[in-house]
């Protein structure tokens, strides 16, 4: 509807219209403004009419798009919840704590504890692996790297985020799994299993290489770019005068990082980590390839496990419509939604000052 000429007339027309029409001082001033300029350009003497059909249509479409997102989100939650209701009714809160997942006909028993545990532990491990590296990247990019190198590395990090997750899955299966199997489990397994107190975490009788640990490793690479990019952005927002003051007092780079940059950006950094955590929680394909898909509570980091997203992807196609199994999968999906929602909401809240 708004043609080419209208845009040229916009700026000139705007001032005029604001002066002439008090109604434009309402809060929808921007929308009306633009439409107004678009509308009236061809009109005589630059007079503009407000509230014509086009304006209202445009405003309604914009508002509709906004509300549509809310409705969509609501519909998703409701659909998941309705699908999950039979499982919640059957098992109640025990669904979350039961480690049993038995889809065999006649002895169905479904509990989400293994999948929830696997999801949370693999994601947290991934954070543990990814955060130090992400910090290193961000520190290097903002403080150490020469100017000409910052852009290529920054772009490479962002490109990592664009790699499809199935590619990470294949890479994980063909590169990371044999690596973990040969060099870590078989090569180092006995030594790390002998560490007092925590050795049991590494002692496994599964030697296939697909494990909670491998899943977390692949996840760490996947979420690395998100955390690194957020950290770089927030580090860059530290006012130079703060850092220069510290340098002026004779602080080293490390002291500036520890004493000025980190305290200044602390909350935002945690928000960025939560963002990565949110992504790790919902990751499906890459994890499915490397985590071993075993519905048993893992006894060690090298035992196979499963995640919510993985179990839903595996079991859903073969679950009969309306069966308790399908409902249990819906219930797991609902729980994943809740967990992701909490994590992402926390991240938004922590990042609120940076996202304005």
């Amino acid at each position, binding site marked *: 509807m708004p043609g080419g000429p209208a845009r040229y007339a916009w700026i000139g027309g705007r001032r005029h219209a604001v002066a002439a029409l008090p109604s434009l001082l309402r809060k929808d001033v921007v929308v009306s403004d633009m439409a107004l300029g678009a509308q009236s350009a061809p009109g005589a003497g630059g007079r503009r009419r407000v509230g014509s059909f086009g304006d209202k249509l445009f405003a309604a479409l914009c508002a509709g798009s906004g509300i549509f997102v809310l409705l969509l989100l609501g519909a998703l939650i409701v659909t998941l919840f309705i699908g999950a209701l039979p499982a919640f009714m059957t098992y109640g809160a025990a669904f979350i704590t039961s480690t049993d997942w038995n889809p065999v006909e006649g002895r169905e028993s479904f509990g989400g504890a293994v999948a929830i545990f696997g999801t949370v532990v693999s994601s947290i491990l991934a954070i543990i692996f990814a955060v130090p590296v992400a910090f290193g990247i961000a520190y290097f990019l903002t403080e150490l790297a020469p100017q000409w190198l910052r852009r290529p590395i920054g772009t490479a990090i962002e490109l990592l985020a664009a790699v499809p997750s199935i590619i990470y899955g294949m890479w994980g299966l063909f590169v990371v799994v044999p690596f973990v199997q040969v060099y870590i489990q078989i090569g180092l397994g006995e030594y790390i299993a002998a560490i007092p107190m925590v050795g049991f975490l590494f002692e496994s009788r*599964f030697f296939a290489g697909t494990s909670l640990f491998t899943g977390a490793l692949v996840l760490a690479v996947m979420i690395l770019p998100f955390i690194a990019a957020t950290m770089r952005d927030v580090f860059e927002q530290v006012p130079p005068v703060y850092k220069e003051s510290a340098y002026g007092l004779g602080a080293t780079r490390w002291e500036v990082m520890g004493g000025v940059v980190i305290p200044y950006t602390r909350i935002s950094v945690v928000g960025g980590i939560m963002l990565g955590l949110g992504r790790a929680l919902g990751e499906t394909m890459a994890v499915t390839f490397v985590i071993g898909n*075993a519905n048993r509570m893992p006894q060690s980091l090298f035992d196979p496990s499963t995640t919510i997203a993985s179990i839903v992807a*595996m079991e859903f196609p073969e679950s009969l419509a309306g069966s308790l199994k399908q409902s249990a999968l819906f219930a797991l999906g609902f729980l994943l939604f809740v967990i992701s929602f909490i994590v992402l909401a926390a991240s938004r809240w922590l990042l609120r000052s940076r996202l304005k």
Partner: protein
Amino acid sequence: MNRRTLLLGTGAALAGSAILRPNAAFAQQATITGAGASFPRPVYDRWGAAARDAIGVNLNYQSIGSGGGINQIRARTVDFGATDAPLTVAQLTEGNLMQFPTLMGSIVLIVNLPGVGDNQLRLTSDLIVDIFLGRLRRWNDPRLVEANRDLRLPNLPVSVAYRADASGTTWGFTNYLARVSNEWRDGPGAGTSIQWPSGQGARGNEGVSNAVRNTPGAIGYAENAYAVVNRLITTQIRNRAGNFVSPVMETFIAAASAADWSVPNMAPDTLDLPGANAWPMTVGTYILLPTNPPAERVEASRNTMRFFDWAFRNGAQIATQLEYIPLPESVTNVIRANWARQVRTPTGGAIWTA
């Protein structure tokens, strides 16, 4: 969340393109749609291509999995459903469906043991059960050595690999384990997916075979067709008659002919049969056909039967080429008789009259 939506979208797009594929030249041909098991898909695809030229029936088959096939035919969104795990008579009656087998396939054990060649390792049912229960931990266990005196078994841990996605292959394999062992029957049980006591899961035949190939000391199960095409190392198994048999067409056909096909749901027991030469893990794959098609679907129902009739007469060679087991002729005659008897038009007439 986005990613999953995308995935579903891609699936829908693929399914969509499968529907669109028949080009305009065949527009005058009759199209039948089916959905379900992925196990027989290679054969159905080849049959479909051949039948299009031979009898003018154009098959559109989507391998969405057995569970999906059952869901789709219950909702009557397709002309026939396909499943690896057969339905019981009660389930068939409830859904107004009839069931018939089309092909048989075998399940084989695949291993990765350095120094052990194809079909050299000899396993008894007890050993298989104990391996998959996680009880036999090392390959040089005295019981394994005892059964394989002519082999040098390595001192490696036993790594079990299984299908993590629900599948007909798992259904067949776990039913075999439940048949030969009460402990398995009362413990993990049998189904398209079960609670495995040990091992690691992988997705699909390719996932399991990859897990086995990557891990020295691994053992898993796969469809024979997949194992042959990918040259996987398989094993001998001792059958019920006490003979060690290798997974070859001869032992598969011995199993097919030892089955009792006259059972009402046409899904006989094909596991662990008594024949001297019978492979113990042979399973059928089945078609589900509505017994009460509405008037506008009668023609599609007739074409479905025409298609499979043609396939039973002319498709055996295609099936054996792809390492599947065609049905004996006595069985296909029973199927035709059941079509004539069970599938009715809304007015009560038989649809299959040939």
